[in-house]
C-alpha cells in the first residue's frame, strides 16, 4: 500500500487513490515506425529490480497523471514529478544518485 505525493495537488496519496500506468518515458512509435521501433514501444519494458520510472494517475483525487521514481525492490520513492516531460528532471536524478551511487542513469 504505497504512498506517493501527487505533484499537482500536493496530496500524499494512498495507493487506493491511485491507478498505475506502467513504465514512464516511453517514446511513441506510430505510423511509419519500423517493426523494431514498434515492438520496443508496445512490448519491451525494462522491469528492473531497482530504480524504475512509472506512470501513476491520481484517479480518485485530482485526476492528473504524474510520474514517480521508485525502487521496485525496497519500495523507496525518490520523487514524483509532472507527466509533461520526456525525461526525468535533474532534481530526481540527483536524488537517485545521492541515495544510490551505484545506480546507472536511465537511457
Amino acid at each position, binding site marked *: *500500500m*504505497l*504512498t*506517493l505525493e501527487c505533484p499537482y495537488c500536493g496530496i500524499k496519496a*494512498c*495507493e487506493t487513490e491511485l*491507478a498505475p*500506468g506502467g513504465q514512464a518515458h516511453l517514446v*511513441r*512509435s*506510430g*505510423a*511509419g*515506425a519500423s517493426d523494431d521501433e*514498434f515492438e520496443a*514501444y*508496445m512490448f519491451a519494458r525494462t522491469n528492473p529490480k531497482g530504480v524504475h520510472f512509472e*506512470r501513476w*494517475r491520481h*484517479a480518485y483525487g485530482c*485526476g*492528473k*497523471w504524474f510520474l514517480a521514481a521508485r*525502487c521496485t525492490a*525496497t*519500495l*523507496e*520513492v525518490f520523487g514524483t514529478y509532472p*507527466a*509533461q516531460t520526456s525525461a526525468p528532471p535533474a532534481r530526481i536524478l540527483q536524488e537517485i544518485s545521492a*541515495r544510490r551511487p551505484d545506480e546507472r542513469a536511465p537511457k
Partner: protein
Amino acid sequence: MSTRLASGGRFLNRATVQNFVFNGKRLRGFAGDTLASALLANDQMMVARSFKYHRPRGIVAAGPEEPNALFNMGRGARFEPNQRATTTALFEGLECESQNHWPSLEFDIGALNSLAAHVLPAGFYYKTFIHPRAFWKHVFEPIIRHSAGLGKAPQDRDADRYEHLYAFADVLIAGGGIAGLQAACVAGESGARVLLLEQTLHWGGRAVNDGAQIDGAPAQDWIAAALAKLTALPNVTLRLGTTVSGVYDHGYVLANEHVGETTPGDGRPKQRLWRIRAGQIITATGAIERPLSFAGNDVPGVMLAASLRDYLHDYAVSPGDRTVVVTNNDDAYLTAIALKEAGLSVPLIVDARRTLTGPLPQRARDLGIRVEAGWAIAAVKGTRRVTGVSLCMQAGEGGVIEEIACDAVAMSGGWSPVVHLWSHCGGKLLWNPEQAHFHPDPARPPLGADGKGFVRAAGAANGQSQNACADADHAARAALAHLGQTARTDLTLPVLEHPTQAAMAPVWVMPQGANQKLRAKMWLDYQNDVKVSDVQLAAREGYVSVEHTKRYTTLGMATDQGKLSNINGLAVLADSLNEEIPQVGTTTFRPPYTPITLGTLAGEARGEIFQPLRRSPMHEWHSDQGAYFEPVGHWRRPYCYPRGAENHADAVKREVLNTRNALGLLDASTLGKIIVKGPDAGRFLDMLYTGVMSTLPVGKCRYGLMCNENGFLSDDGVVARLDEQTFLCHTTSGGADRIHGWMEDWLQCEWWDWQVFTANLTEQYAQIAVVGPKARTLLERLGGVDVSKEALPFMGWVEGTLGGFPVRIFRISFSGELSYEIAVPAGHGRALWDKLHAEGADLGAMPYGTEALHVMRAEKGFIMIGDETDGTVIPQDLGMSWAISKKKPDYLGKRGQERPHMTDPDRWQLVGLETLDGSVIPDGAYAVAPGSNANGQRHTEGRVTSTYFSPTLGRGIAMGLIRRGPERMGQIVDFPTTTGTTVQARIVDPVFYDKEGAKQNV
C-alpha cells in the same frame, strides 16, 4: 483431572457465573474466563480430533498460538468455524462444538487413519492420488473433499455487522506488555500521536506471571501507573482486544478489534477493522514458547509450561493434579514452582541439560521438587489424556529408566520472538545460537518511502525479554528521532528485574538418538499433523528448500503460520540436511498474524452498499413499471418491461414489433457523453478515432471507432460537432469513464502542448431515443423544434425548446427506424419522459429495454462493443474499413493494424449467419472445421458473436466471425452445441433487415 482451584485467578470475576454449551453439554464458567480456561475448569482436556489422523487433541497453549482448540462457534446466522478457544472470551449462552470428528468427539471413525499412519507419510496425497486416473472423479476426489479443510463453511448470511475505521499515528505500537507500555510512555509523553494496540484483554503481557519486578516492586504496580499516565495523555489511544494483523508497504497497517463478540445481537459491530497509516511501527509482540519433540507430545494434557502457569495464575485452573515438567531452560521452573506453591504435585522436573547452575533449579529443589538433569521423556502414556511418562537419558536412544504417573506434562523448548510483523514487509532476521531463535536484524528493517526503516522491534519480540524496558525506551527514542520529533530527556528509565535464568540448551529431538518409532510419534505441527519423521522423510526425498518442505509436508500451514511449529521444524530439516539452521532459513511470514473473518474484511461493504449503483433520472419510472433490470457497468438498465403474464421473451418480442411498427421509447441516458473542446480538439479526435472528425461540419454527427495502439477496437459512438472548437463524443454505456481516462492520458502524457479540454458530462444529461415510424409525429405534437426531414436530416442535430424543454435532438439510429435521440438536462429527464409517454399514448408509445435494442441492432447488422469485439478484433475484421481514414497520416492503432497478422486474409471476419432450420444458435458456439489439433481438439473456423430470435423476421439470426467469412457467402458452417447436436447455418450478409435503409430515411 483438570479443575478450578478454590481461590485465585486474577482475571476472574467469580460473582458472575456464565453458562455455555460445548458439544451439547451444559457447562459453567466465570466472567473473565476464556473459552479455553472455562473448558479446562470443567475437565474438558480433550477438545478436538487432529486434522489428518483424528488423534485426540487437548489445549496446548493459552494464546493465539493454540493449534488444537478450534471450534465451530454459534449457530445459524451466527455460526463461525475455526474459532480459537484461547482467544475467545467466554460469555453467557456461548455455544460451540469441536471440529474434525464424526460421529462424536469420543468415538470417531476417522481415527482409523491413525492406525494407518504409516501409510499417510509426508506428501501422501501427491504420491497416492495419481493413478489410476479413472479413480479421481469417483474415489479420490470425494474422499479428499470430505476430509479437506478445517471446520465447516457457514450456510447462512452473516447476521452480524462489521465496520472499518481509518486511523493515523506517528508511532503505532503492537503489543501492550512491558515493552509496549514503556515505548508508549516515551513516545506519548514526548507528544507524539501514539496508538497502542494489545491483542488480549489485559495489559502487561507476561511480566506478572513471569515474576518480574519493576523499580523494586511487583510489575503490576508499574503497569497500573503506566496505564494511568497513558490514559491521561490526549495524544495516546489505547485499545485492548485489538490484534495488529499485518504490516504493509509504507507504514500501512491492518488491525482487528473484537467489539461485540460477547454480546451478539446488541447492535454493535462484531469486529472492527482498523486501517492505519503509521509513521513508525514498534513491534512489542513478545515471544512464543516452543514445544519439545518427544513421543506422544500431542496427548491431551501435554501443554506449554508458561501457558499452564498462565491458566493457574490468571484463571485459577489446574490442568492436572500431578504435573511433570520437561524443559531445556530455566523458565519452565517458574511453572513448577507456581504449581508447588498452589499446593499441587510436581513429581519431577525433567531437564535435558546436563548441568544446572541457575538459582531457579535451586529454588525448585529447595521446595522439595525432584529435578533430574540430562534426562528426557521417552514417551507419554495415555491416549485421550496423559496417564504418565516413561523417562530416559537425553543423550541416549530412549531406553526407559523409569516410569512416573502424572496427568499433565508442562513442556518448554525455549522461546521464539514473534517476528511476524517485523517480517511482513521485508524485515530480515538473525539467528541467535545462545537462545536458539531468530530475532529481527536491526540493520535490515523493512524500508519506507524514504528508504529508511519504519519498523522497530522491542522487548521479547526483539530477543530482549530480560531487557525489555531499556530496549523499548531505545526503540521509542529512535522512532521519534526518525520522525523528527524530540524525545523528552527528563524521563527516568524503569529498572526491570526478572528471576535470573541460566543458559538454555537447544533440544530439537528428545531423546537425541530416538528411533524411527519414537520419531513417528513426535509432533512438530499439531494442527496439520506433521511429525519429525515426515520432515526427515521429505529431506531424504530431496527437499532442501524450506519453502518446498513446508508445502510438501504442510508444516506451518493453515492458522499456525509458523507460530508453534516453525523453529522445531526448521531445526529438524537442517539436521537432516546437515546444515545450520540459519542456512536453511525460515518460510515467509505473511499477514494476517491471526485469521480474520471475511465479514471483517468486507466491513459495511455488503448488500446494497457493496458498490454504488448508478441510476438514470427515469430509474424510478422503470421500477414502477415492473422493468426487469440488467447490470451495465455500475448502471442498472431495463432489459425489458414485461406486461401481465408475459415472460421476458414475449416482452422483448412485443417491444421490438411495436417499435418497428409504431413507436418505442428508450432510456438512453447511460450513453457516455464527453465534451472535447479547444483549438486542437479536431486534431486530437483525428488521432483518437480511426476516421476523420476535424472535417465534421457544425450541426452534423459522424459515427466513429476508437482503437488501442495494438489496433484492437475499444469503443464506438457518434460524435456531434457543437461548434467550431467543441465536439460531443458519445461512448458506450460501460465505456464512458474508461474513454475519458484514455483521452486524458494522451492529453496529459503525450500531447500535453495541444490545447484541448475534456469533460465527462454523462450524468449531466438524460437522453431519450424516440424510435419508430411515428417518432416524428410525436415530436411535432410537442412542438417548438422543426424535426422535418429537410430541417433535421439523418445524422444531423439541432438545439431548441421541445414542448417547453431545453433539448438537443440528434437524428441518429441504432435500430434502423426513424429515430431521434433527445438530450435534456438530467433534472428534466423524468418530466420529458413522462410527457413523451402521455402525448404518445394514442400513437402506441411503449418503452423498450436493452434486449429489444440489441435485437434491433442485430437485425440491422450493427456491431456491439463487447459482443462483436473481445479485445482481439480490429475494425477491418468487422467489415468496417469504411470507417477508417486512408488519408490520415496517423491515428491510435494505425501502426498496429499494419502488422502481418492483422492483414492476414485468413482472419475471422464478420458475417451474418442464418440457421437452416430457423432455430437460434446457442450463445458462444464455435464453428468447427475438418480435422483436429495436437491435443485432439476439433479445429475451429469461427464463432458466434451475437445470436437472437428476430421477431421481425420470425426466426433465429446471428452474427459471427468466420475465417475468410465474406468470401464464403452461401456456404454452410457447423456449430456443435453443448447438448451434442449440431446447428447448421448459412453464411449471409450481416444486414438482415431493410438493407437499403428505407425505414430510417424518411
